[in-house]
């Protein structure tokens, strides 16, 4: 029986290795500077000089705005739940965050479609809001976890010196948690940067020109991979693999880096 457990672990790792290896092998040949700096070909038949600059620009804008929306709200939610809220409210809002975390990404996409896109059209902002909905519970949960690690003696010391609670919270308690908040945000970005489903309905009907304006629909790397993978043209498949390689490198780097930061900040907090 113990051998089977070894086998199960080997299967999981084999899955990961197979995927990363396939992406690296098929993506590397197509990976060049043009992919990052040039837009897709405008003409119908030409496959020369085709890049995905519009997708890279769009992902930067959409994910950046999603961080700007989810990060402050997530931190405030965590501060309220950990520092102020009575137990009953804390449990209730925690449950709501868990439920929000469990809502399928495609349903979030449909929700934002109904909220913003019907009537106003697609936009990068709508896509950012959809990603922010996915990030919010992750950021709030990870911030709550580090806030809970801040020793109460620090809060008491602040209050004992006559510092008001709001200043104690903002200038003594929160600065202790910055490492943890950064970690949580990096992991949340790693998670949502690869999300396709929320963007399909909110920011996918786009042209080929590179745009940085979030009030227009923006292309993104995951949506580009999705569309290229469904195309009948093998040249498109090659670009899909190359874009997948860039995406997977970014996400592996971010999530491994985030995990390393997490263990580091946790041991530092606990060793104090």
């Amino acid at each position, binding site marked *: 029986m113990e051998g089977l457990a070894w086998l199960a672990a080997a299967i*999981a790792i084999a899955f990961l290795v197979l995927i990363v290896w396939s992406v690296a092998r098929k993506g590397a040949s197509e990976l060049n500077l043009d992919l990052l700096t040039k837009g897709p070909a405008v003409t119908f038949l030409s496959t020369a000089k085709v890049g995905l600059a519009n997708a890279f620009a769009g992902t930067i804008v959409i994910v950046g705005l999603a961080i700007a929306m989810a990060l402050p709200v997530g931190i405030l939610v965590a501060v*309220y739940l950990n520092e102020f809220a009575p137990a009953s409210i804390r449990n209730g809002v925690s449950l709501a965050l868990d439920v929000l975390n469990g809502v399928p990404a495609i349903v979030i996409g449909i929700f934002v479609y109904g909220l913003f896109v019907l009537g106003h059209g697609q936009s990068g902002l709508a896509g950012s809001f959809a990603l922010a909905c996915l990030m919010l519970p992750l950021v709030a949960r990870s911030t709550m976890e580090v806030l809970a690690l801040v020793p109460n003696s620090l809060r008491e010391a602040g209050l004992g010196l006559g510092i008001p609670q709001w200043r104690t919270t903002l200038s003594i308690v929160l600065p202790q948690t910055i490492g943890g908040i950064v970690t949580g945000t990096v992991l949340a970005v790693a998670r949502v940067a690869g999300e396709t489903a929320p963007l399909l309905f909110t920011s996918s009907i786009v042209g080929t020109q590179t745009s940085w304006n979030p009030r227009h629909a923006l292309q993104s790397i995951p949506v580009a991979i999705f569309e290229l993978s469904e195309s009948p043209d093998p040249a498109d498949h090659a670009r899909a693999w190359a874009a997948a390689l860039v995406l997977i490198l970014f996400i592996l780097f971010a999530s491994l880096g985030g995990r390393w930061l997490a263990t580091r900040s946790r041991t530092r907090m606990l060793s104090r």
Partner: protein
Amino acid sequence: MTSLDLTDAARRPFTGRRVRFGDVSLQVVAGTAAAAATVLVGLIVWKVVDGARPAISHEGVQFVWRIAWNPVLGREVFGAASFLFGTALTSLFALALAAPLAMGIALFLSELAPRGVRAPVTALVETLAAVPSVVIGLWGIFVLGPALQRYVEPALHSVLGFIPLFGPPGSAGPSIFTAIIVLTMMILPIVSSISRELFLGVPHELKEGALALGSTRWEMVRGVVFPYARGGIAAALILGLGRAVGEAIAVTQVIGGGVFIHWNLFDTGDTLASKIAESFQGAASDLEVSALFYLAVILLVFSLLANLTAQWIVWRVARAHGISRGGHA
């Protein structure tokens, strides 16, 4: 807690002022954020149901068990039955494959693996969870699907062909079977990492007691670890099922589509989530868009039920074990 009672606050020594403006405003701002997060859940439910309203009034409850998806103007008929069937088939098979694997991985990482191996293997398994679904789907289309179709499906068909599930392999690449394998990969890390934490939470006294009574390591796992973590494992499986049911992109890429009910795993199919994802640019009419919202309502109801059930199980288990797990489980 900050007291808003002025007379009471005024009597307190050392406070200086009666009610601190900063305290109240931080509390109000942070409290508003918390309220907004809660309201967001309600808003999602309301907006999705609201979008489905035209389809609900046009199709009624029959939508749920009708097999149809005809967006032709004037003759529109929509039904969810084939997608419900496809969702159940793919996610239950994926769970059946992922559950034993996840238990094995969790046992390996919590009990069996040598110390130096645990941390890297745990990181690798969790990295599998970080691979975006669109990349898994891409791999599913061009690598996994063709491989399964060429080698695995004919072999399974020739040996187990008398079972309707293992019918003749389709001519094209996409199949329900590919979707099942892809979903298995996607829920494996979640179920195994939750189970691993559960196994690590089993008290040492119980494990050592079993070993001291002469049981082997496997008997200790079967007699102590599994029974202790049983409730939590159920919750982990439900969360894994919820993830499988809600996965749209990777499934859309590999499952092929089609509005019909059949048992052949090697043919194409569709799920609730994949139907929504593949129709994103092609909805012919407002009614079809609304029918997609209707599918989303079904998905949303399922995910809410799955989450609340899992939370309830965790809460009950925590109470039964007499341990408080802080504000959240």
